Structure formats: structure tokens, C-alpha cells
């Protein structure tokens, strides 16, 4: 159900361009439904997941 993928931004420039990655880390959730820039505490990531894809 959950896919957590690290992507080397320089090696996969097509992906980086698709999401306009300009600083790292940058977390793209479900192809852009959600976004978290920077290394954030777990609670912030969870809040963005809830915002982007709903409570459940």
C-alpha cells in the first residue's frame, strides 16, 4: 500500500523537472497531490498526508 522512494535528483532529471525540484529534500506525495519541502518532523508529514489524500 505504501511506497517510499528515495530519488537521486541529479540522476533522474526528467522526474526532477516534472516536479520542479529546486532544493532537497523535497517529498512528492501521490504524483503531486501533496508536497513537503525540507526535512520536517513526522507530525508535519502526517498533516500533509491527511491534507493531500484525506483522513483515511
Amino acid at each position, binding site marked *: 500500500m505504501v511506497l*517510499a*522512494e528515495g530519488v*537521486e535528483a541529479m*540522476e*533522474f532529471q526528467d*522526474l*526532477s523537472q516534472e516536479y520542479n525540484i529546486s532544493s532537497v529534500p523535497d517529498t*512528492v*506525495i501521490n504524483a503531486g497531490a501533496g508536497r513537503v519541502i525540507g526535512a520536517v518532523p513526522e507530525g508535519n508529514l502526517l498533516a500533509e498526508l491527511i491534507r493531500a489524500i484525506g483522513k483515511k
Partner: protein
Amino acid sequence: MEKLLSDSIASQVRDVFKKQLKEPVRVLLFVSKDNCPGCEPTQQLLEEVVALSDQLSLSVHDMEAEPDLATLYRVSGNAPAIIIAARDGERISDLGIRYLGIPSGHEFSTLIQDLILVSGRDSGLTPQARNYIKGLTKPLHMQVFVTPT
């Protein structure tokens, strides 16, 4: 062939693995013959890393030659793709944890941490996050873009 890991790094990582690895981990590397300058160094690096602990093993797959396996592991054409899976005896469990690219620089420590995390069989997440993930009814895909520097 000249090693990618120096003796001193190899010995440090071996010590860390000895102290921190618990259960076996299988690393699957998906490579491609097509335009993949990163595939060869990644394979060599992973071979050197798994040699540092009996708990670690590696299998290397060509994503074009083994399309069914690539689909099973949700590998979509980007190579190199490194899957860090749990191994219990002959059984391999994909936990959805992967890295695309050469794990060099800072990403080398991320690789080591990922191996330790999967080996411990515990995400370390808060109860709130665990509950949320348990309740998911649709797939969740998180892509964390990183650079080695």
C-alpha cells in the same frame, strides 16, 4: 577491480552492522542495459556492502529481461532501482522501501540506515502515523528527492 569502499569505511560499516543488524535483509537491484551509467557502480557498491554482514544478501535483476519481477516490485523503468526487503528464510517481503540512483555521498549513510531499519523490522513511527497508515484504503506513493551532496 578496485574497491569503492576504502578499508577504513568498510571496517566502520562492518562494526555498525555487527551491532545493529537484527533480522536478515535482501537487497534487490534492478538494472537496465539501456542508458544506465549508474548501474555498474551501484552493483559494485552493493556487492561490497552486503559482503560486510551475513545478514545481508543481494540479487541483481535486469528489468527488461525480468519484466514480471519488475512489475511485482513496482519498478517502473528507472534504473538503478534498489529495493530493500525483509528476508525470513526463503521468504522475501517487499516493504515498499526503495532508492533510485547511485547511493553515494550522503546517500550512502541513508542506505546503511535503511538496511538497519528494515533489519530491525520496526518503522519507529508514532502510534498516530501507524494508525493512519493502517487505515489507508488507497495506495500512497512518497518520492523523496535527494542529492548526494
